[in-house]
């Protein structure tokens, strides 16, 4: 009963807080660039506006084009549901482990790329190709990061990993430090943040994520934007759960759930500022440099795993 409660609470928190996190990051980016910024509530306003508008669909669009936003949104909601952010007592978590989580992200990516190519515009296919390029390089690195954490806790189940990591005694783990850096690089690439893609631009030559969703409007676009915010939220929460797991409620401590929510909000707020700083400091790289960038992430993740095996550290 309590498990179901924490599961529902976790998904609700994700749905409500995800746009706020996006707004927070954008607001900090604006502040760091000496602009006044649109305010942290801007993503909610955007979603509200888009949900009220009519959806326009291209004449030749197949049912896949209409279905894709719902699939993507569903994938991201489920991903937020299985990452232990508030509690490790989640009924959904036995259904999906760390590998399935990567699979969920991949499923969403496949659908959004197919939908982008479905209408047949040039930008759609261009964006889809770039997205797949980035995705297929980022995925192995993400898997390696998760495997490093899985090696430490001898399980690929996310709740077990977080349980083990939260209960270890305080020690320096070089492997986790490497994995953390690798994870940061992967999340920058996967969430279309600055060194890889600029979420604020519509310049044809550089856009990746924006090119994918160019044909969407109205409620479809709202769902996709919301899903993008959820993806950022999911990645942030996964990073926090793996590398800063303190404050997550355990299965046998129901009251800790009350404490866990403010702690999560605090951690996300700090993480959001860090992301904004990172984005402000780095310049957008050429698309052909992205493989190198992601190869670095893969390398770091593999080193993390090797260091873990050799030094037990």
């Amino acid at each position: 009963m309590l498990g179901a409660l924490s599961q529902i609470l976790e998904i609700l928190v994700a749905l409500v807080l995800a746009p706020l996190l996006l707004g927070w990051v954008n607001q900090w980016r604006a502040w760091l660039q000496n602009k006044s910024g649109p305010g942290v509530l801007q993503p909610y306003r955007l979603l509200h506006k888009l949900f009220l508008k009519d959806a326009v669909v291209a004449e030749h669009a197949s049912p896949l084009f209409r279905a894709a936003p719902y699939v993507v949104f569903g994938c991201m909601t489920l991903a937020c549901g299985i990452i232990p952010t508030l509690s490790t007592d989640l009924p959904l978590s036995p259904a999906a482990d760390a590998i399935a989580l990567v699979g969920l992200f991949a499923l969403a990516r496949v659908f959004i790329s197919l939908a982008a190519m479905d209408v047949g515009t040039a930008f759609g296919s261009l964006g889809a190709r770039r997205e797949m390029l980035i995705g297929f390089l980022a995925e192995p690195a993400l898997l390696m990061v998760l495997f490093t954490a899985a090696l430490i806790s001898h399980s690929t189940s996310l709740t077990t990993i977080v349980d083990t990591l939260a209960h270890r005694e305080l020690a320096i783990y070089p492997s986790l430090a490497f994995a953390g850096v690798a994870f940061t690089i992967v999340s920058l690439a996967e969430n279309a943040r600055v060194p890889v893609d600029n979420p604020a631009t519509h310049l044809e030559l550089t856009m990746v994520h924006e090119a994918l969703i160019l044909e969407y409007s109205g409620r479809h676009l709202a769902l996709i934007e919301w899903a993008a915010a959820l993806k950022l939220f999911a990645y942030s929460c996964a990073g926090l759960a793996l590398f800063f797991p303190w404050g997550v409620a355990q299965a046998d401590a129901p009251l800790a759930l009350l404490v866990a929510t403010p702690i999560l909000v605090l951690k996300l707020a700090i993480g959001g500022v860090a992301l904004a700083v990172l984005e402000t400091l780095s310049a957008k790289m050429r698309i052909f440099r992205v493989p190198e960038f992601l190869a670095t992430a893969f390398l770091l993740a593999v080193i993390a795993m090797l260091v873990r095996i050799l030094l037990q550290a």
Partner: protein
Amino acid sequence: MSPLAGQLINLFAAAMLLLAFAMLSQRRVLTLIHLFALQGATLVASTAVVGYATHQPHLYLSAGITLALKVFLIPWLLHRVINRLSVRWDVETLINIPATMLIGIVLVIFAFNIAAPIAQLSASVARGTFGIALACLLLSFMMMITRSKAVPQVIGFLAMENGLFFAAVSATYGMPMVVELGIALDVLVGILILGVFMFQIREQFDSLDIRHLEKLKED
């Protein structure tokens, strides 16, 4: 030995490995020198920690020599050389970095496998890091192979010496003092001679690309 010392040794070993990879993939000469100095500093720190953990005062002395030589003197000499050669902002574009890194990973696995049985013979507190030391050695060696310019090759050579020193510290708490002093002097003289070589190479070929040296062989 306190657990913290063991963790610090592991941390520094991991940082050494990371810096070896960073040097392998770095295109800019200037950043390469900075990375080399940083690797030297990591080496100093780990030697000092091993010395502290095992109560071996002579390791402090080796750490001191390394600090003076590899963190201050040699990077300073290299800075002077690249200023004089005006290759300060030189960028190498020839190497395929992702492929080099993948080969580097294979080298690391190879080194770890070779080191595992040797490390078991050692009674040192830092025996786990022997594999990393060997990997740093091989990676620097590979850096020397993949680079075609003279300055990065010299830095690769010096980084290889870092790896050797680290291996000695991790497996047997360092070499006898005489040997260490001898090697330190060798490296110093080596860098001076190699500096002269670089000037000569440039004089002869108007470039620091050592592939021009192939022309020297007689047909």
